[in-house]
């Protein structure tokens, strides 16, 4: 698969304007660019877990989707698309359908890491020919910035508020991409908005066109929940990658591949300082928390490098 | 034969009492009867006492309750005589059939004064002699067919041959053993 940025940009738009996501939303940036992975002429059915994306892109009677779209509930996007893909196989088998369809489902981290985890795990284990895309903004943004198991340590959320006895979320975030990779499915990748989207575009196309189950974990910043200056989204994503907080990697048929290694790994402060949800870490008395955060980033990065070097 | 025959089976999970009840329903169905065969379900596993039922009639059967006043009781495992009130509700003009190595005289004191007819069969002996393994349900099925006069022996054997041939199509030795067990059981029950 040769990659050409301008060709990718010249493809027809598959997410129409007029949806009601926030100005500067990272979620729809993720969606638009994942859908660029579809080949022209191929049809798709898009699934979607309940969340910001769903309530904003299909507010009756306005759908922003140019493809067939199904929202079912919060916790079952994996199972719902399993059924749609099953229907495709059945109709093909019975000679009732000629067209080629691809199956892509989107969920936020709430619908993916947490309440939809079982449904996702089941769909992946059954190896349905579909891509599950998590646009990970690290909290339940739709309901007002509550913590999820994707929320990074020490983040200030409405259910892990910073207080006199609390420094934000006490726990680490779940490493979902690794968990899904442990399902031994054909393709797992993690990416975000860097390198002019080359990494994301290539991984999306691979995920969509790899037969069997595929999972994409995309860091998609939320200006409201992360409390940063909206136009800075690309810079934040870059810092996520350059600090090794959000590494770019793939797991292809069980083989771990590191896609990018910063020439000079930046300190985690550079990523945290841009975001209001970590503001409390920059008080003098909380410096040790940043050290803790850095230790965890380092530990995970080392483990990833080790996995990818095998 | 009376219009409605009601049979209650007592066995232990894993001995095939439920299967025997379903087989009895099956074979009676083949002779044009209306049948019911159903187990009483619980969470029990291997070894626990279980109950199964049969209704066999010339008329359609509509009742969906368990059987409380059976005409016949089949006890697939004699150790149940102590554990379960096997003669509960059993009609005086009915009969109880027990799988035992003991004699009728030895068994009678364990039947709580039951006044009806008592039949015994050593299903262990029959099973080991014919199949080389202990499957009490096959001999017990033949025995109850005879005791309750469900059908002619010939018809019964013919139907069972057909049923086994269908069920164990690729295993002629299994069919042979089972058929031998049925035939021997018809002789052995007393």
């Amino acid at each position, binding site marked *: 698969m040769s990659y050409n940025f301008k060709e990718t940009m010249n493809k027809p738009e598959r997410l129409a304007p007029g949806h009601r996501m926030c100005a500067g939303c990272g979620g729809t940036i993720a969606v638009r660019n994942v859908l660029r992975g579809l080949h022209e002429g191929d049809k798709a059915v898009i699934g979607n877990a309940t969340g910001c994306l769903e309530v904003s892109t299909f507010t009756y009677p306005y759908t922003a989707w140019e493809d067939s779209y199904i929202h079912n*509930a919060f916790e079952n996007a994996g199972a719902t698309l*399993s059924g749609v893909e099953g229907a495709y196989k059945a109709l093909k088998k019975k000679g009732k359908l000629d067209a080629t369809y691809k199956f892509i489902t989107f969920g936020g981290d709430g619908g993916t890491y947490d309440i939809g985890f079982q449904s996702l795990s089941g769909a992946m284990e059954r190896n349905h020919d579909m891509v599950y895309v998590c646009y990970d903004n690290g909290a339940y943004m739709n309901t007002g910035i509550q913590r999820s198991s994707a929320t990074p340590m020490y983040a200030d959320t409405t259910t892990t508020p910073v207080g006199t006895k609390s420094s934000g979320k006490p726990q680490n975030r779940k490493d979902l991409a690794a968990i899904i990779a442990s399902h031994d499915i054909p393709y797992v990748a993690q990416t975000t908005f860097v390198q002019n989207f080359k990494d994301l575009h290539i991984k999306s196309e691979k995920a969509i066109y790899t037969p069997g189950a595929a999972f994409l974990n995309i860091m998609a910043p939320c200006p409201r929940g992360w409390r940063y200056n909206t136009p800075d989204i690309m810079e934040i994503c870059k810092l996520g990658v350059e600090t090794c907080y959000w590494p770019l990697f793939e797991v292809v048929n069980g083989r771990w591949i590191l896609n990018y290694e910063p020439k000079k790994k930046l300190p985690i402060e550079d990523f945290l300082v841009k975001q209001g949800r970590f503001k409390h870490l920059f008080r003098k008395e909380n410096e040790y928390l940043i050290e803790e955060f850095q230790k965890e980033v380092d530990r995970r990065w080392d483990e990833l490098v080790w996995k990818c070097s095998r | 034969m009376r219009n409605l025959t009601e049979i209650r089976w007592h066995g232990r999970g894993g001995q095939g009492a439920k299967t025997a009840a379903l087989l009895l329903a099956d074979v009676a169905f083949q002779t044009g009867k209306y049948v019911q065969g159903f187990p009483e379900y619980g969470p029990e596993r291997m070894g626990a006492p279980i109950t199964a039922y049969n209704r066999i009639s010339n008329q359609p059967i509509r009742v969906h309750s368990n059987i409380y006043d059976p005409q016949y009781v089949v006890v697939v495992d004699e150790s149940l005589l102590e554990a379960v009130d096997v003669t509960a509700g059993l009609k005086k003009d009915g009969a109880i059939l027990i799988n035992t190595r003991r004699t009728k005289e030895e068994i009678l004191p364990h039947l709580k004064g039951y006044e009806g007819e008592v039949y015994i069969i050593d299903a262990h002996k029959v099973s080991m002699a014919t199949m080389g393994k202990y499957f009490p349900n096959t001999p017990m099925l033949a025995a109850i067919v005879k005791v309750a006069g469900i059908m002619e022996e010939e018809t019964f054997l013919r139907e069972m041959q057909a049923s086994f041939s269908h069920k164990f199509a690729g295993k002629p030795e299994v069919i042979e053993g089972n058929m031998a067990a049925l035939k021997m059981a018809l002789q052995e029950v007393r």
Partner: protein
Amino acid sequence: MAKRDRLSGNEAVAIALRQINPDVFPAFPITPSTEIPQYFAAFAANGQVDTEFIPVESEHSSMSAAIGASAAGARSLTATSSCGLAYMWEELYIAASNRLPLALALVNRALSGPININCDHSDSMGARDSGWIQIYAENNQEAYDNMVQAYRISEHKDVRLPIMICQDGFITSHAVENMELLDDEEVRGFVGEYEPENYLLNPDCPMAVGPYSITDYYMEAKRNQAEGMKHVSRVVLEVAKEFAALSGREYGLFEEYGMEDAELAVVMIGSAAGTTKDAIDRLRAKGEKVGLVKIRMYRPFPAEEIAEALSGVKAVAVMDRAEGYTNHGGPLGADVMSALYRARSQALAVNYIYGLGGRDVRVEDMEHIFAALRQIAEDGDAGETYRYLGIRE
């Protein structure tokens, strides 16, 4: 040509499904419905159907996948019992509000807790207001026949609503009984091809399903959904008529037994109705004017027709195989009594809770109910209207 057979209720439903050859069947095991997907998986494994059988990881997912498949344009279904139905609760509402034709083979079992695997109707009764059509069976024959008729009702263009085909756990699901099967070709001809109007996999027109609805639309959306329910009775009867022509077996919204001149009647659902018929025969032999209304279609509820059927009775006992915790009875009791009230009935009505968690119902129990009704009619007073059958005090 009809074929005589003897099958368990689960086997009968599985055979109906094999004959229908649906497109997608996601399933998760739960006692006592487990055998249905088991039998079906064997049919799929042996190429007797070309269904996509999807063994999912939970009931929530089985219903979710069935919804996805139905929206995609496939004929789909699942099977479950008890807690499995409870686990798919949210999805029941979604299937109905999306107006998706879809079948659920429900084998009724008590809901936890305490955990219990035996029959009562607490599972489906709880789902009675979810927007599903509910059809119940007395015996294996009816479970089979109802399954064969299910898609014709569910997919009808005036209906397009999911349908629950219910039978009593263990009592019919695991009991072998005589019945008649239709030929495979007859069933396929009767059920016909599924031709949805809008569906996800329509290459000519994409579709979006499952919107967010702002308040401005929500109430109208619900009214629009209710419209589908209004056509169900007519369609059920039309389909039953065609089915009778094929099978010789007649079905209505409910069955009346001994109701022509009945003064005392029982209204009930499910397998205990057969037991009640035996009790009625015994009492009629003694000259008592007793009868039964056995409800086949519980949702939508044929209120006017039932009130009409009960118009001549002096006393009626409505039998609920589920608690309602209303302090005044169960769901069927509430429905029947409200139907009687609307019809300005003078009948004295009582509501019994019975048969919970597999508690057996004997012919004698039903004779006891009629005896109680006789007393009520003589006294001209219903007395306590919220009663339990055979409860130990």
